[in-house]
């Protein structure tokens, strides 16, 4: 190419292609903006919703403790033989219990009535499916929770093994359930929260508790279901149930700590 030819060409792109180049430039900037917005959205979804929900839940738990009074965490409450008390039917969207799952990293979180995302699950913690049994009743206490984002109360649900305790604390009592089974279902398999899990329409004779959360992580394609069976209850005024004492010492770490725990258990028995 001769120099003049090249210059002419450059002038050409400078004029007609200039506008074209400008459009490309703006398109590029818009795409970059879109990318930045997507990243920002992920930051919000995966991090900020947790920050907000954690703060909210910590406040709720502190508030419940104020209402119900402090639990004597150093005393192991004796198991009660009589039938467990049944809490009053809770108001919609209201927090009525605290849940303790020692196997989870975040072992304590609030339990509210309802499974509405905006009213309950995104802000308050776990949600009790309305109309399912209450603790102390025959039937199935069904509870939903987020596995990711919004405080992710059930983040570690995949970790639960047979026999792990799930404890519901109300104003009067601790209800201790023990995990029996974990399975994966599709989102439409509502029979898992039937009064007799998996057998809709049957009369319940046992006290069950079922946790439901999303599966796999970061997806809503399937559901992970954990069933647990009622083991025993204790009075809240007597202290904490031994299930939580074990959990507490185990999470404090190490075999040294669990010595104390098992000693307590033996005394108690």
């Amino acid at each position: 190419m001769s120099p003049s030819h090249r210059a002419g060409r450059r002038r050409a792109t400078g004029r007609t292609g200039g506008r074209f180049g400008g459009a490309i430039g703006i398109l590029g900037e818009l795409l970059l903006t879109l990318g930045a917005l997507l990243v920002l959205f992920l930051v919000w979804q995966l991090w900020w919703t947790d920050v907000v929900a954690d703060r909210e839940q910590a406040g709720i738990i502190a508030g419940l403790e104020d209402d119900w009074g402090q639990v004597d965490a150093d005393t192991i409450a004796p198991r009660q033989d009589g039938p467990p008390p049944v809490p009053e039917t809770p108001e919609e969207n209201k927090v009525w219990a605290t849940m303790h799952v020692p196997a989870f990293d975040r072992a304590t979180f609030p339990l509210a009535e309802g499974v509405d995302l905006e009213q309950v699950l995104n802000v308050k913690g776990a949600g009790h499916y309305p109309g399912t049994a209450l603790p102390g009743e025959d039937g199935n206490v069904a509870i939903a929770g987020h596995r990711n984002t919004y405080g992710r109360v059930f983040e570690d649900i995949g970790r639960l093994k047979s026999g792990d305790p799930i404890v519901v604390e109300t104003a009067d009592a601790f209800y201790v359930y023990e995990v029996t089974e974990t399975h994966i279902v599709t989102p439409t398999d509502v029979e898992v929260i039937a009064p007799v899990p998996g057998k809709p329409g049957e009369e319940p004779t046992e006290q069950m508790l079922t946790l439901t959360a999303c599966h796999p992580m970061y997806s809503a394609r399937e559901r992970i279901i954990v069933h647990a069976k009622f083991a025993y209850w204790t009075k809240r005024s007597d202290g904490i149930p031994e299930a939580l004492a074990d959990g507490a010492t185990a999470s404090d770490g190490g075999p040294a700590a669990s010595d104390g725990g098992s000693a307590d258990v033996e005394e108690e028995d």
Partner: protein
Amino acid sequence: MYAWLFRRLPGPLWVRILLAVLVVAALVVALFGWGFPALAPYLPFDDGMVGATEPPDPAR
């Protein structure tokens, strides 16, 4: 586009940089506070976190 906007901002360079940072910060606050929460229900990720039943709730 952004270069043009930046040139339109008033004041000396440091004022314009400050303004640009403030505008971006305000945008992030607005998105975190209202934009994303409003958008989230329409996106598939979080949809049926509720477990087995979304609205069907046989028991309700």
